[in-house]
C-alpha cells in the first residue's frame, strides 16, 4: 500500500507550482502589485521573493493596463510572465491588452508569434467584498477566442493546472476563488500537470449530473453528501477549463443520468451555465428527462451587507433542492436564512479583513 497522499492547502499548492516552475525555467517570472510583499498575494507567492529576488518577483506600479502590455511584450520576447491581480476587478483596467492584444496576437500575425502569459485573478467573496471585489467574470473571458480560461477547484488541480498554464504557449486567464484558498486536499510532490481541457469527474453518481465551476464544486459536494444520505446520487463534473471547453465528459454524464444542473459562480444571463446548457440541449436533447437547471448568481451587483449577500450567493442546499425536484423526490423544508447569519465567511476559522 502506498503512503497516504500529502495534504496541502489550495494556496500552498499555487505557491508550490510557482516555485517549481521558477526553479526549473529561468523564463518564468512573477509580476503583480505586492507580489513580493509580506502578504504575498494571500500567501500564493510566499517565499518566492526571498528565493528568486526582486527581478523575478517584480512589484509594479498601479498600472494594470500598461503592465499587462509589458507582460505581453516580455512574453513575445521569450519570457513566461505570471501576472497576479489580488482581485479580478483590477484586470478590468487591462481589457485592451488581454482581449485585443494577447488573445489575438498569434492569430492576427499568422501564427508567427505567441504570448505565453498567465494572468491570475482572485475572485473575492464575503466579509463585505461588495460590488467591486467579488465579480466572477469567467464568461467574459471565455467568450474571447484565443484566450484560455482556467478555474481550479481543488488543491491538486490548482497546482497541476497552474503548471500547465505556465507551460502553455498561449495567454491563460487563471481565475482563483478566494474561498478555495484554505481548503486542504492531496497534492503530489514535484512537477505534475493537469492538462488544460477535459473536465474532471469529481464524484460518480447515477441520478443527476451537476456541472460545476470553481467554488461551486464545493457547494455541489455538500449537496451530494446530503443527498447520498437520501439515496440520491449526484455526479459532479468539474469544468476547470472553460475555454477551450471540452463538453465530452458533460455529455457522457448526461447520457447516463438524463438530468442536468449547472452550478456556476457567475451571473445567470449570457453566462457560462447557459453555454453548458446550450451544448447539451443542442447535442443531447433526447437524453434529457427533465429541463436543465442553472444555479448561478442573480443578475445583480454584489451587495456589501451580509443582510443582503446572504440571499445573493447560491448554496449547496439550492443544488440539493434542484436535484430532488429533477429526480422527482419530495422537497425538503429548509430553515429560513436569517439576515444576520454569518454566511459571509467560508468557515468558522476565517476572520476578516479578506
Amino acid at each position, binding site marked *: 500500500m502506498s503512503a497516504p497522499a500529502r495534504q496541502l492547502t489550495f494556496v500552498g499548492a499555487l505557491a508550490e507550482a510557482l516555485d517549481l516552475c521558477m526553479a526549473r525555467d529561468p523564463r518564468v517570472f512573477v509580476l503583480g502589485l505586492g507580489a513580493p510583499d509580506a502578504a504575498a498575494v494571500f500567501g500564493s507567492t510566499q517565499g518566492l521573493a526571498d528565493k528568486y529576488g526582486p527581478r523575478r518577483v517584480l512589484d509594479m506600479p498601479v498600472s494594470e*493596463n500598461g503592465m499587462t502590455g509589458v507582460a505581453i511584450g516580455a512574453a*513575445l*520576447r521569450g519570457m513566461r510572465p505570471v501576472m497576479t491581480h489580488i482581485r479580478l476587478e483590477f484586470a478590468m483596467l487591462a481589457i485592451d*491588452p488581454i482581449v485585443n492584444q494577447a488573445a489575438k496576437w498569434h492569430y492576427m*500575425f499568422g501564427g508567427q508569434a505567441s504570448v505565453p502569459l498567465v494572468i491570475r485573478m482572485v475572485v473575492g467573496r464575503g466579509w463585505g467584498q461588495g460590488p467591486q471585489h467579488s465579480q466572477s467574470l469567467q464568461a467574459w473571458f471565455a467568450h474571447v477566442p*484565443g484566450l484560455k480560461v482556467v478555474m481550479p477547484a481543488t488543491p491538486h488541480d490548482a497546482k497541476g493546472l497552474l503548471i500547465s498554464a505556465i507551460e502553455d504557449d498561449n495567454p491563460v486567464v487563471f481565475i482563483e476563488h478566494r474561498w478555495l484558498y484554505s481548503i486542504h486536499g492531496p497534492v503530489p510532490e514535484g512537477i505534475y500537470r493537469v492538462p488544460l481541457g477535459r473536465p474532471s469527474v469529481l464524484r460518480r453518481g447515477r441520478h443527476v449530473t451537476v456541472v460545476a465551476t470553481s467554488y461551486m464544486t464545493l457547494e455541489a459536494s455538500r449537496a451530494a453528501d446530503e443527498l447520498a444520505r437520501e439515496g440520491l446520487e449526484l455526479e459532479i463534473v468539474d469544468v476547470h477549463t472553460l475555454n477551450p471547453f471540452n463538453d465530452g465528459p458533460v455529455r457522457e454524464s448526461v447520457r447516463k443520468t438524463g438530468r442536468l444542473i449547472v452550478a456556476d459562480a457567475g451571473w445567470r444571463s449570457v453566462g457560462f451555465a447557459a453555454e453548458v446548457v446550450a451544448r447539451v440541449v443542442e447535442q443531447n436533447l433526447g437524453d434529457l428527462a427533465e429541463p436543465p437547471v442553472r444555479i448561478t448568481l442573480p443578475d445583480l451587483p454584489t451587495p456589501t451587507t451580509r443582510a443582503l449577500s446572504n440571499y445573493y450567493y447560491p448554496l449547496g442546499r439550492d443544488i440539493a433542492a434542484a436535484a430532488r425536484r429533477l429526480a422527482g423526490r419530495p422537497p425538503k423544508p429548509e430553515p429560513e436564512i436569517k439576515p444576520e447569519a454569518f454566511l459571509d465567511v467560508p468557515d468558522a476559522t476565517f476572520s476578516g479583513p479578506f
Partner: protein
Amino acid sequence: MTSAPAPPPDVARRLLRGIMRIRMIEGRIRDLYAEQEMRCPTHFSIGQEAAAVGVCAHLRREEQVTSAHRSHAHYLAKGGDLKAMLAELYGKATGCAAGKGGSMHLIDLAAGFLGAVPIVGSTISIGVGAALASVLQGAPILSIVFFGDGATETGVFHESLNFAAVQKLPVVMVCENNLYSVLSPLACRHPAGRELVQLAQGHGVWARQGDGNDADVVYALAGEAIDHARAGRGPAFLELKTYRWLEHCGPLDDRHLGYRPPGEYEAWMARDPLELYTRRLRDRGLVTGADLESTAGEVTAEIDDAVTFARSSPFPPRDQLAAHLYAS
C-alpha cells in the same frame, strides 16, 4: 526649428534613399488602392517619412520596433520585407501576417519589427515589455516605440513611460506629432501652451523635440536618444513635429473637409521632407540628378517586383480560417 549637424555623406545618402523609397512605395500603394483589391484600412505615411528613416538609420537588426496604425514607414525603414508587406495588403497567404493582419498589423520578426496594431497606445507597453525581457535575460536590447500625438493622451503611454523610467529600461519612444488624431486637432486634446515633450519631461525622462521633417534633425536627435537608452541610462522620448498630407485612413486628399486651417497644408507642403532633403544633398554636392534618377529606377524595379509577387500570390486556403487560434 532646430538645426542639426550634417551626418557623414554615406549616412546622408542613405537617409535620402530611405525617404525616397518609402515615398515611392506609398505612392504606388495609393495608385493600386483605387483598384479596390487591397481591402483593408490603410493609413499612409506620406509626409512623415523622415521621422521613420532618421530614427531607424541608427538601429541594429536585433533592436525591436513596435508601431501603430500608421506603420508602413516604420516597417520599411526598419528593413521589413516589401514583398510580404504588399502581399499582406492584398490579403495573400504570402503576406507578412499570412493575410490575417492587413495594413494595420505588420510584422517582420527577422527584421526586428515586433509588430504594429491599430489600438492607439497598445504597442507602447508591449515595446517596453520587450525591453524588460532583454534586461531580465541579462542582455539588454533597445526597443523603439513609434506612435502619434494621440497616443500621448492614453493612460498606457504614461503607465509605460513611468515603468520604463522606474526600471531604467532601454526604450526610445518616438512620438510623431502630426497635429491630428483622425480629424481632431491638438487644440481639443491638449491644453494650449503645453508641448507634448513636457509630458515625458514630467515623468523625469530624457526628452527632446525637433523638426520631424528634417532628416538631419531627426538623425541627430535619435542618435542622442538611442545612445542614452543603449547606455543603460533609462528611456528617452522624442517629439518629432511633422504633418499628415492625406486623409486619416485611405489614399485621398481630404482638404475639402475643411478641418485644416487655411494655409496650414501649404506651409507644410513647402517643407516636404523629401524635397527638403533632396535639395540639401544636391546643395552639398552629395547627389546629382543622375544619382536620383538611378535610385528612382532601382526602387521602381523593386516595387514592380513586389507588386507582381503580391498580385500573383495565392490567397490563404479555407483551412487557414481556423489555423493559428492557439499556439501549440
